[in-house]
């Protein structure tokens, strides 16, 4: 029979470092959400100023992925690139949360969790690699 590990009720104590992790995570989540919301709203509003036919097909979506034109499109306030950036920002919010957590666990010398969170980041990297290899 495995050794019984009945932990006594512990006093809830949160170290300064851990409190900072919570505060940082909160800031990132809120900031990313607010900024992408504003950009999405701006994109939709701009798109509605000049309504035009937009096909709901895969082909159209792929043609819209014009990264070389994104910067140019942003400066020209074109709705497509603005919404693309908002989407990217939204996707990057949890990713940056993971990165901040790695650093915060490292700073509080919680090396086990540096590894655990590092694994999560590795899966994200693997996803990007697989995506760029051109699945499909």
């Amino acid at each position, binding site marked *: 029979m495995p050794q019984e*590990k009945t932990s006594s009720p512990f006093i809830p104590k949160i170290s300064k470092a851990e409190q900072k992790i919570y505060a940082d995570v909160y800031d990132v989540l809120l900031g990313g959400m607010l900024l992408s919301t504003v950009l999405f709203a701006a994109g939709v509003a701009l798109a509605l100023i000049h309504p035009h036919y937009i096909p709901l097909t895969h082909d159209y979506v792929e043609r819209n992925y014009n990264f070389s034109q994104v910067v140019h499109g942003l400066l020209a306030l074109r709705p497509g690139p603005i919404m693309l950036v908002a989407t990217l920002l939204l996707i990057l919010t949890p990713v940056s949360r993971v990165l901040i957590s790695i650093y915060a666990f490292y700073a509080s010398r919680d090396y086990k969790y540096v590894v655990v*969170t590092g694994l999560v980041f590795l899966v994200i990297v693997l996803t990007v690699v697989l995506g760029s290899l051109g699945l499909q």
Partner: protein
Amino acid sequence: MFYSLSFVLLLLIAAVIAGFFGALLGVGGGIFIVPVMVLMFHLPMKIAVAASLVSVIATSNAGGSSYVDQHITNLRLGMFLEVATTIGALSGSVLALYLKDWLMLLIFALMLAYMGYAAFATRNVDDERIAAGDFARARQDRLSAYLDLHGSYHDEAADRVVNYVVTGAPTGMGVAYLAGMASGLLGVGGGVLKVSAMNAYMNVPMKVAVGTSKLMIGVTAAVGSILFFMAGLIHFYVVAPVALGTTLGATVGTLVMNRLHSASLKWLFAILIAYLAYGMLAKALNIQFHLHWPVLA
């Protein structure tokens, strides 16, 4: 499709309603918004799934941050299970790239049916367990002991600090993998699966499970979204109103939720889910076998 004010408004309103009901019923907006986009707006399944997945990140950020702020979320438990959910999300979204639309619709219908069943099968016995101080007295498995998985939070309803130790880490990881897979494949958060697994197998109080699940949903959905983004499946003109709507609906829904009793909601949920499951099944059969089952939308 003409990108007119009426189209955007309709999609926005549909997303608000989906987000609102999602939050009210304690599930993400994904399980409502995907069928709405497919059945009402006739969007291709994969574009609907990709758009829903991006909006799931938005609602996770919105809902998750308040739990983090109140220190209900268990960050360590979240990080640990995220290893499994992200691997699941990657395999799910890779699968989504290769599956035919009608098969995805069929799997979605099955998932809805399971959700309807789970809503009635799960019973919340947290109140009694909190009163008995049960959560702090459990035997940890080796993995959760090694990873120091435990925590405490202030429970407002019981007005006391609840201590708990986490158990059953391997089982939890298995279910988390499945939840991640559902997320990447179907564009949902997979919260119901994770919450019930944490509560039933891992000795995690319900509120902690909900908050921790919300945090995990963000990075899980991000992994699927990255793959869909790179595969060219994200329709930005569709994503924008859907993300805006579900975020708004979920925020309002969360505020209202605390003042409602859930018994009558369960029936509403069951009826909604049953209808959507039927609709998705009908659409799948229509695409593949040209059968015409009547659907309202």
